[in-house]
């Protein structure tokens, strides 16, 4: 009953004319920057921060939060239409989403993503409202050792998830891990693998690598095959998923929401794992896993729901603990402090109208995103009819602007071009870039957590086995690998995966 009272307080705040308008502006801006490759929520929120000085804190945060989850919606649009993941969380959407677009089902893919996200967003809002406080305690059980084991498990799943040969996938993950070690050593300040290049001293930026191996490489690949463009251009398909599509999507959406929601709560950017985990699960559960990677609707519905659920439950550690789980949330901490609200465990009791108002606004925002996005799906799909000779330069320019805006380093743009060539080479040699990106995203955290766990345990590797949660996660990882590598299964797998 208390939850109900809280939510009604929240809706009272969120449904004022002014806050609805702010929420709308936030969602619209968020969708737009999500669609533009490279221009991410971090840059946008920091640019808009001073504009919110004049607003009351609740209104300001409602708008900024709208930008954040709006960008998650928009990001999948780019992933599906032009095969560029704008955010780490939309990497898997490129796998099947873009294939669907190529088959003339771009509209259905976008519609499914929007509806799945809406559902996930609604559920996540309820989770935050009802379980936010108790769930925080769960997150606190995770120390460095548990995180490390969780990520080992994630990478094992990634090997199994990959298309093509296990060996190639394994190599790509290792390469990703290697890329993640470039930069200044966290403990000693020693520069590693930088070859004296100053801009490498902080490592390779995610967007530089992702835009390169996905964006630039994709453009290169498309340029060489002129006939491929007509496939996408010719058929747009209807915009709303049909009854069959919906039936196929219901279960993946439910599962994706659950997985994404749980992983999103974990501090340390667990939300990144959500879409990957969901994709793997759908592939494992599918009657015919060979459809994955060739335009399976479950491969869009599940990860997209997971992505949105995770994006929202990521607010739980911020709102209940005051601890930001990722870079965007760190920026929200900044936004809150600028408005005189220091995030912490007491925000809920000291600023109830802010806390509950923001949560209620998330539901309002999700509804708005659906209303904004479903009609826009038609418009986004029309983008595909833009001739590629116009679209490619535009994609490249937006990528370059986006990359430059991350750190204001011209060399970053040059590195992206380099990774573009590298990505093209990978495609030619039949390597999947997605596992590499996952290895890269998790590598930084993995190294950090491994070293933290070992420093705390004074160098004893037993710490990973002695702690029950960590041990459990490792057991799952070993099982997954064992199953994938068992001769009988791996043979079947090869038949299924090799084209």
């Amino acid at each position, binding site marked *: 009953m208390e939850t109900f009272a809280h939510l009604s307080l929240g809706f009272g705040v969120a449904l004022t004319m002014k806050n609805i308008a702010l929420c709308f502006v936030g969602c619209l801006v968020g969708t737009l920057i999500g669609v533009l490759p490279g221009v991410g929520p*971090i840059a946008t*929120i*920091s640019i808009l*921060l*001073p504009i919110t*000085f004049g607003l009351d804190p609740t209104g300001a945060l409602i708008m900024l939060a709208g930008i954040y989850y709006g960008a998650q919606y928009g990001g999948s649009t780019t992933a599906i239409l032009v095969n560029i993941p704008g955010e780490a969380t939309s990497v898997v959407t490129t796998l099947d989403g873009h294939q669907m677009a190529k088959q003339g089902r771009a509209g259905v893919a976008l519609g499914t993503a929007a509806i799945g996200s809406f559902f996930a967003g609604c559920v996540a809002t309820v989770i935050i409202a009802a379980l936010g406080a108790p769930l925080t305690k769960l997150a*606190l*059980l*995770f*120390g*460095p050792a548990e995180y490390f084991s969780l990520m080992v498990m994630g990478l094992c799943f990634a090997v199994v998830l990959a298309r093509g040969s296990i060996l190639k996938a394994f190599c790509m993950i290792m390469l990703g891990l290697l890329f993640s070690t470039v930069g*200044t050593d*966290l*403990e*000693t*300040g*020693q*520069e590693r693998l930088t070859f004296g290049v*100053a*801009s490498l*001293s*902080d490592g390779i930026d995610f967007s530089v690598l992702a835009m390169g191996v996905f964006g630039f490489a994709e453009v290169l690949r498309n340029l060489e095959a002129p006939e491929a463009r007509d496939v996408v251009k010719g058929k747009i398909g209807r915009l709303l998923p049909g009854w069959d599509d919906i039936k196929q999507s219901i279960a993946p959406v439910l599962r994706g929401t659950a997985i994404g929601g749980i992983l999103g709560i974990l*501090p*340390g950017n667990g939300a990144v794992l959500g879409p990957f985990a969901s994709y793997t699960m759908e592939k494992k559960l599918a009657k015919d896993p060979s459809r994955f990677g060739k335009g399976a609707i479950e491969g869009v519905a599940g990860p997209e729901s997971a992505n949105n659920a995770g994006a929202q439950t990521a607010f739980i*550690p911020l709102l209940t*603990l*005051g*601890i*930001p*789980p990722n*870079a965007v949330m*760190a*920026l*929200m*901490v*900044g*936004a809150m*402090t*600028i408005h*005189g609200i*220091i*995030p*912490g*465990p*007491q*925000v809920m009791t000291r600023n109830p109208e802010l806390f509950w108002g923001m949560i209620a606004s998330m539901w309002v925002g999700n509804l708005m995103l659906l209303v904004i996005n479903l009609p826009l799906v038609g418009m986004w799909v029309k983008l595909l009819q833009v001739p590629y000779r116009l679209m490619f330069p535009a994609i490249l320019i937006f990528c370059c602007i986006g990359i430059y805006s991350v*750190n*204001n*380093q011209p060399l970053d743009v040059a590195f992206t071009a380099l990774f573009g060539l590298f990505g093209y080479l990978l495609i030619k040699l039949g390597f999947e870039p997605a596992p590499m990106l996952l290895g890269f995203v998790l590598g*930084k955290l993995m190294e*950090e957590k491994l*070293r*933290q766990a070992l*420093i*705390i345990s*004074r160098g004893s590797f037993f710490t990973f086995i002695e702690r029950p949660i960590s041990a459990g996660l490792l057991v799952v990882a070993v099982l997954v690998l064992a199953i994938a590598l068992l001769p009988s299964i791996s043979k079947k797998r090869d038949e299924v995966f090799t084209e």
Partner: protein
Amino acid sequence: MKKLILGFATAAALAVAGGAQAQGYPTKPITMIVPFAAGGPTDIIARIVADNMSKTLGQQIVIENVAGAGGTTGIGRAVSATPDGYTIAMGHLGTFSAAPATYPGLKYDPFNGMQTIGLAGGTPILIVARKNFEPKDLKDFVTYVKANADKVNEAHAGLGSVSWTTCTLLKGVLGTPKINSVAYRGTGPALNDLVSGQVDFMCDQIVSVAEQVRANTIKAYAIASAERSPALPDVPTTKEAGLPDYQIEAWNGIAGPKGMPKEAVDKLVDALNKALNDEGTKKRLLDLGTVLPTAEERTPAGFAALIKRDADKLTPALSAAPKQ
């Protein structure tokens, strides 16, 4: 003919106006480099102060986040920019006082190679520990840490960060450099592990830890300032609690490249001073737990003296700390 004369007159008038404008700094937006990611304490202070300074100067101050290498990338870029007054930077204790001893290959000289403008604000440093850490107060803490140096874990936000710098100084004061030091990427993750009890203690800015202390999810031993903070009036100063040698404050201040025109320096100093006297700006800063700078510290010379004083204080401990 008449038209021609009129044309000349207009051109001349324009030329005069143009000339006058070129003298009246600033004639175009000013870039303020923040050498950290958006949303951190330095970024917040920079945005609050720059917002008001823009009004005084009549030109927008644009914040550019150039993160990297503990903030030295951004400061390096700012102080090597053309000294025309249109590129300045908001640095902090780490980038100005600690960097020379932290980064042996530092590309700039904070003592002689830049033009200081003034201090924007100081932030007190707290010694905090996990809730159930054995020592009851600071005296206990000192004894315990000295006796169990090989068992205690200290968390910090990475080499060169404020928490690393101030905690290294603490270890220097205590004479216990052997304490296990666990590095995190940023204060957030470090604080998370302190709340959940994975690590034992850390030193950090009041703005980052105050809410956790108030909520009793972590405990504070002392504040390393001369006076108690109104944000946490119950926390004693290090002087009161028996460790008077540990006095350090994290601060943020503005500097630019050496050789800036005097007019630009004067106008920036004036704009900073006006911002710090503005009621709205002042309130925002005080809400963050910031200590407003003294009149002396708001001047280029006063700020330069502060940079030097803290560098002298930090250098012995930082040079002894393990790094590259």
